[in-house]
């Protein structure tokens, strides 16, 4: 799989780039060469913008209940209709995007940081420390993510911080694994041995010598984890162990609307569509990123 991508002929880039173009811009243009990853990246950027400006463009408050407007079909006054308590679905979806991206994003970031640290240290050090730590990670990996999440939430109780903790615990092992495998591949290389002989500190070796090699794989893994984290947050909200009502969490909205699907189906379809769109978008972007970054090596 990796080798095939590596040697596949490159399509013509959309914009002319050169060595002087910043790397991130080069990566972005490569993302737009394929229609699938172009779509995914556009969706992701669109939701980022919505999350940033959402509270300013939302016509109603996220928890504002207008009894007279309860259970209304989508219309000009309420683009996505209203739910059983008279809350505007459009406003809730927009404002809810901020919550879900923030939570999933922060959680993924923390998981990536932790996983990188563990992976680097463990891969470089080796020995008993590596053995024990990664057997532990393996056992965590063996459990389905949702099950692990439910067990943890059952113990520490549902709240915003506990969901962050859950994302970190569930995804650190995978990130750690990926980083460790890259480190193990790089460790026997000549420049590492040279640095060791030169007397560089471990810190320098890890972060200035090894990390750049890890970075592409890490970026792809982070994007992939991000899409799964979004799905995990939505699932936990749906199961009722995520953020508590009346928060406009998309998963929670789907759960609340479930019983009312015959009266207000739009209250269920729009949040569900938003979840699907975002998860698929980020996933496609991660795929494109994988191809784009491998090319750069």
């Amino acid at each position, binding site marked *: 799989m990796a080798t095939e991508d590596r040697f596949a002929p490159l399509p013509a880039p959309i914009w002319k780039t050169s060595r002087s173009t910043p790397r991130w811009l080069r990566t972005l243009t490569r993302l737009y060469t394929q229609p699938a990853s172009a779509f995914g990246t556009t969706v992701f950027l669109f939701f980022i913008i919505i999350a940033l400006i959402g509270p300013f463009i939302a016509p109603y408050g996220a928890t504002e209940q207008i009894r007279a407007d309860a259970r209304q079909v989508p219309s000009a006054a309420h683009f996505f209709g209203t739910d059983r308590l008279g809350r505007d679905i459009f406003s809730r979806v927009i404002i809810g995007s901020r919550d879900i991206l923030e939570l999933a994003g922060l959680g993924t970031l923390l998981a990536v940081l932790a996983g990188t640290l563990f992976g680097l240290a463990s891969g470089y050090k080796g020995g008993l420390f590596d053995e024990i730590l990664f057997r532990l990670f393996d056992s965590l990996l063996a459990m389905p993510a949702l099950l692990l999440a439910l067990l943890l939430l059952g113990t520490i109780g549902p709240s915003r911080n506990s969901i962050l903790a859950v994302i970190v615990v569930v995804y650190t092992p995978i990130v750690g694994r990926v980083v460790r495998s890259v480190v193990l591949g790089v460790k026997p290389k000549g420049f590492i041995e040279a640095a060791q002989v030169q007397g560089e500190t471990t810190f320098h070796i890890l972060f200035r010598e090894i990390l750049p090699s890890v970075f592409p794989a890490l970026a792809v893994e982070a994007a992939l984890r991000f899409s799964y984290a979004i799905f995990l947050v939505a699932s936990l909200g749906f199961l009722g162990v995520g953020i*508590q009502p009346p928060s406009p969490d998309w998963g929670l909205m789907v759960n609340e609307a479930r019983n009312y699907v015959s009266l207000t189906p739009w209250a269920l379809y729009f949040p569900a569509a938003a979840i699907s769109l975002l998860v698929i978008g980020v996933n496609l972007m991660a795929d494109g990123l994988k191809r784009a970054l491998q090319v750069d090596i």
Partner: protein
Amino acid sequence: MRKIVIALVLLLFVLSSGLVNAAAPLQQEGGQEYTVQADDWLSKLADKFYGDVFNWPAIWLGTNQKAAADSSFAMISNPDIVEVGQKLWIPDAEEAAALLAEYSGGAAPAAATGGAPSGTLRVAWDIPVQLDPAFASSDSEIAILNAVYDYLVDIDPGNNIRPRLATRWAVSGDGLTYTFTLASGATFHDGSPLTANDVVWTFNRLRDPALELPTADLYQNITNVEATGDLEVTFTLAETNPFFLFDLSDNHAVILQADTADPATEFNGTGPFRVVNYTPEDRMQLQANENYFMPGKPGVAELEFIFFSDQAASVDALRGGQVDLVMRMPTPLFLALENEAGINTVSVPTNGFDLIRLRSDREPGNDPRVIQAMKLATDRQAIFETVTLGLGAVGRDSPIGPLFTAYYSEATAMPQRDPAAAQALLAEAGYPDGLQLDLHVPDSGDRPDLAVVLKEQWAEAGIDVNVIVEPESVYYGDNGWLEVDLGITGWGSRPIPQFYLDVMLVCDAEWNESHYCNPEFDQLVQTAGTTLNEQERVQAYNEIQRILIEEGPVIIPYFFPQLGAISENFTGLELKAFAGRTDLTTIRPAQSQ
């Protein structure tokens, strides 16, 4: 020889008619009026006029029938209590016999339609956990008990006591002795006949303090239960209890065979259905009991209880034809079913309610102004319309609901909603910046929506609520709900208001979640629960309602309805407020006439 025989026969006729005349009741044709004297009670009068203490229902029903047309007669709501000076109607023998027959189950109308039971009725329920009658509590568990066993007496949808295994009963004048006659011909599913000993064993088990059953408290007023005949049982009470018959019909009090080793698995009852197969968490299959002691019941040949872990799934199954009857569903699904072809929906009001309470024994609830502020900030009408969608009834902060027609009172006015005044009260109580509280809510029924609507309403008064929705097993588990400061609890429908007062609002009540303690209030509850004077009780309940509205610890925004939906292939559903007690023997396949 022949002449002697004829003479003897004639003599026999004369003597027997003479006997009949001697025991003839002192009544005229068509019945008569009678004014209650001191030391009169219905069974004593029945003995006087009919020669049989157990014929008191004739006088009761006869008086009530008269009262409907003639206002000089007062309706008797509780037949154990008659007042001196009250006018009674004593029907004549024929009329009395007809009234008695009607009272004892009225099997005649049902038997007239259909003959033998036919068809299979499939009912959807939640998964039952506890099948020992002493511990069962959920609708599905009680439904199983109601099908497999019998109660001594039943409570009909109009809140009246009806005979079941006990066909007749009489109460002594001082109200402390109750004598019951059991149905003859009732047998357990294993073939052995029902005797008084089985009833005695059942109630001794339920009230045994050593077993620590939930009913031990309820029946601690009973000092003695004994078999005074092969089919006669006598209960002796320590204190008068005007609601004793309702207590005897408690959900747990089904009659078991004496010395049953393991009631949770043996399913050996006298009831209208016999268990054929039970697969836990899947389904229970039952067959009509051909030897059931009530003729003409049940109406269906086979009964199947199918268990669902999700109420929405059970409604879908009803739509798809996999079940015929669903009696527990969220309100919005009920509304969706109302317009569905092939399904009939039923809704009955109940005495069950959801309440919101703040602990009044510690901060911030120990300052009555805080609770007052919360009450002022709540718009019960809005909650009723939004959360229960207008089904059921609006609440007035007291568990005595509108169905208790004799006791419900609107004499004390409910204050208008005023968030500004609420905010001022909070400032006065020492919270000028408002309050911040955690609200614990079980995730069943309409309670999560109630929490969300309440949060919005209270925000206007400066009370910032953090909603925490928990599964029922977490909220009620380890009695955590009794510890939290602010919580929403659902209370199922009960036939008498006294129950709620006794277990929820008196100082040492077992489930006093608000930790409310007011000795004056306790005194009123005590009076209401023991006096045989109906007027006194009505007054006590009125005063109780006043106290609860003005300074009580709980907010009751609504009484919820009981909802049911049945396939058009069946008729005869008489839905009860507590769904599990619905009498499934009245349901039979619809005739395609």
